[in-house]
């Protein structure tokens, strides 16, 4: 007889804590999408663990009725790696932001991607420091005027997708707070992927950086400015789906589908790292003329790399098989002993 798995609802994943993000914050949407997805995964609630660092996004675990840890700035990835290595059967999620993951926690971010534990990493990128009330972040555009950069920031920003690919991430995707359906699809894909799944989520901070992603999220400009990638499909965008991306050697070019055939377009292949790398560089300032549209969706998936937690535990199992269960008294005695009478 199989046990009846109780079907959970989004409400079951909602804790009794009052949500305290600013009204209108993009975080609300992400929380809702995660709570919507989890019941569909068919796992008991106690198997989910949400770990966060510091920042507005990092309050997330308090609002989830799962196991959770709101840790310290930048370290969620390191904590999650330790948990996943030792408890591989759990579903471990990290909630982070652009500052948490790419500034103070940059080291853990790249090293987690490199090691590839089976962890879902949602990075809420709002291109600003919200919790500390409005300083520029490592993803803020150059020239950004903030409280700490009254004359404009001189730093060049990180490109999170390119950074993740550079760190050999095995699942790299981008979505946005204002597109619930797309977001749900990306979160689900992240969960299904075996390995570290990075989902960069463009998230509006309506208090300190309002409208940072408006051009991609507003109906009026979205179709013209975004490239919604789908595996096996040609790269098409534009108000009337009248534009496409073609590859001329390694050089991407925008073509007008009124004079060009859709059959000549670049077909998106999620498993092609070289092409993913080119797409990751579609990162121009949208104010510039001749810029490429900003890609959303899965840039890259590598399904052929073992996860860190698997390798870690396989080695443990191999050691036990090869050496047998340890004998503590033998170990304490060591190889050479002598007797004093």
């Amino acid at each position, binding site marked *: 007889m199989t046990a009846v798995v109780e079907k959970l609802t989004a409400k079951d994943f909602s*804790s009794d*804590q009052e949500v305290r993000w600013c009204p209108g914050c993009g975080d609300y949407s992400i929380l809702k999408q995660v709570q919507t997805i989890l019941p569909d995964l068919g796992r*008991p*609630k*106690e*198997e989910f*663990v949400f*770990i966060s660092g*510091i920042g507005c996004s990092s309050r997330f*675990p*308090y609002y*989830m*009725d*799962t*196991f*959770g*840890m*709101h*840790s*310290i700035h930048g*370290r969620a990835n*390191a*904590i*999650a*790696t*330790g*948990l*996943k*290595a*030792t*408890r591989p*059967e*759990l579903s471990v999620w990290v909630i982070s932001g652009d500052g948490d993951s790419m500034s103070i926690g940059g*080291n*853990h971010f790249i*090293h987690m991607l490199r090691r590839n534990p089976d962890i879902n990493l949602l990075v809420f990128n709002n291109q600003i420091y919200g919790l500390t009330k409005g300083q520029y972040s490592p993803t803020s555009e150059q020239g950004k005027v903030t409280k700490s950069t009254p004359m404009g920031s001189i730093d060049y920003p990180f490109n999170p997708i390119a950074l993740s690919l550079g760190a050999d991430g095995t699942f790299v995707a981008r979505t946005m707070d204002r597109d619930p359906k797309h977001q749900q699809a990306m979160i689900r894909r992240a969960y299904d992927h075996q390995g570290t799944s990075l989902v960069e989520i463009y998230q509006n901070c309506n208090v300190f950086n309002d409208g940072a992603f408006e051009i991609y999220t507003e109906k009026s400009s979205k179709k013209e400015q975004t490239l919604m990638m789908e595996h096996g499909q040609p790269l098409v965008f534009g108000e009337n789906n009248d534009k496409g991306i073609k590859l001329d050697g390694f050089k991407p070019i925008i073509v007008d589908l009124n004079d060009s055939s859709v059959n000549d377009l670049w077909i998106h292949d999620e498993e092609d790292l070289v092409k993913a790398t080119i797409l990751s560089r579609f990162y121009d300032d949208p104010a510039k003329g001749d810029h490429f549209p900003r890609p959303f969706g899965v840039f890259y998936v590598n399904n052929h790399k073992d996860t860190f937690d698997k390798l*870690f535990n396989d*080695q*443990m199992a191999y*050691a*036990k098989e*090869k*050496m*047998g*269960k*340890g004998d*503590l*008294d033998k*170990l*304490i*005695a*060591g190889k*050479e*002993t*002598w*007797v*004093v*009478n």
Partner: protein
Amino acid sequence: MTAITDKDLESVVIRFAGDSGDGMQLTGTQFTNATALHGNDLATFPDFPAEIRAPLGTLAGVSGFQIHFGSTQINTPGDQSDVLVAMNVAAFKVNIKNLKKGGVIILNSDGFDSKNLRLANVPEDQNPINDGSLADYDVKIVDVTKITRAALADSGMTTKEIDRCKNMFVLGLVYWMYHRPIENTLEFLRTKFKKNEAVMNANIKVLNAGWNYGETTEMFANRYTIAPAKMESGVYRGIMGNQAAALGLISASVKSGLPLFYGTYPITPASDILHDLSKYKNFDIKTYQAEDEIAGICAAIGAAFGGHLAVTGSSGPGIALKGEAIGLATMLELPLVILNIQRAGPSTGMPTKTEQADLNQAMFGRNGECPVVVLAAQSPSDCFTLAYEACKIALQHMIPVFFLSDGYIANGAEPWKFPNSADLEPINVSFAKERAATDDKFMPYFRDEKLSRPWAIPGTKGLEHRIGGIEKQNVTGNISYDAANHELMTHLRQEKVDKVADFIPLQTIDSGEESGDLLLLGWGGTYGALRTATAQMIAEGYKVSHAQVRYINPFPKNLGEILGRFKTVVVPELNNGQLVKIIRDKYFVDAIPYNKIQGLPFMSHEVIAKIKQILD
């Protein structure tokens, strides 16, 4: 042929010294093992430069290994050596000042050529071998290089390979001088070089050549017998502090039934614990070399959350980086053991030199009111006992625990009457049980009589809860900025540490009377030197006693009462005065600090001089 006389000695100090590439640490370790198997009590002191291969032949590159062994109780590696083995001028120059007048010097004459003299900055026209400066010593000049090369002339090995066997010649010779058994070294060489028979045979040949050299040349009029020590009966092994710490952790893992997770980043002198632990995966010991110190402790916190016995380890600079995460563990009220194998600081300091200057860091080195339990091992074998204790306290009180050791005991060796695992105190751990929807809501910060909260690990039905670094409401664990609650929680975290005092042994006087004129109150690796000094003072009729504190936070409950029984309390430390300030503050006694900050352990004669200065 001159007859060789056999003399009985009570104890001997030998110092092996050479270039850092000369294999002196290996020579010393082998001699230590043979001496332990012979049944002598012993203590060792490896003293080496931070560079793996410092410039050849220079003073900076000298690597030394001192061993003190005897038929009586041996507490320290010895203040001065009776025998100095010097492979070159630099080794001789660095170590001659610590050789007793009349002591034996065994010189490798090849290491005293013009090139070595120049590298060691010896003025021209001087050479200790023939300038008469060593008239006070019993000098044995041996051309180790030449004899080694001759012995291996037919080996087909290159000169460079042959010269690497020199240390075996010296070892063989010293084995002969002191009647040490040679078998364990033969066995060691057979195992170490089992894949390279030529090198194995060469080393064995040279080892035997050294032995035979003693036997056949007329240079050595004496051989020495040091009878086995009268130690407590039982089965013994030799142990180094870091090895003992690793064994203590593994034992705690086995006895608690919890797999061990060691999250760390390589750093001198703590790395050997990682090396050791990584070999024992079949004991469910999981090691994780993280990307940095912070990730090392954070991964351990993740493992602790998941229900493992979680440990992180480092030395002072790494502990500084871990500070924020130790604070997190304190707020999370999860069990965590933090090893600090101290070295001379601050900053990078002197990585291979010992110091006890991280006590303040362990006690106070975090933001906010952040008390943790602090234990300090006093000898190599005590690292086993206290690493085990640290795990036990962490697990049973749901609290971070510091284990302090230092470079001196971490790398020092001594005989150890090791315990049976069955005799180790049990470590009982239980996780919070699953709950049904109809049960009361789970309260993650509900406390038991030790004030510790339940360990509710992910995967347990009905225990879903959130923890974090933000202040928590007591009992519920919800975020709380309530003024009274913060004060309550601060007191609770302190009381939790204080309550540990109910579960640790009372302080004992290690040697001397229960009261008297002067108490030497030490902590950590100074134990042997203070014990030796005390024995000497007592022999001279002074009313001196010695106690070594191993539980520093909290202190044993009777410590204040013990302090009150002595007219004077002296606190010797290898720092600028850290324990002494805590003692003065807590017990209001006018304790006298006695400090040495040279990256070196106390010599017992230094301690004796200090006591006499105070008492006479």
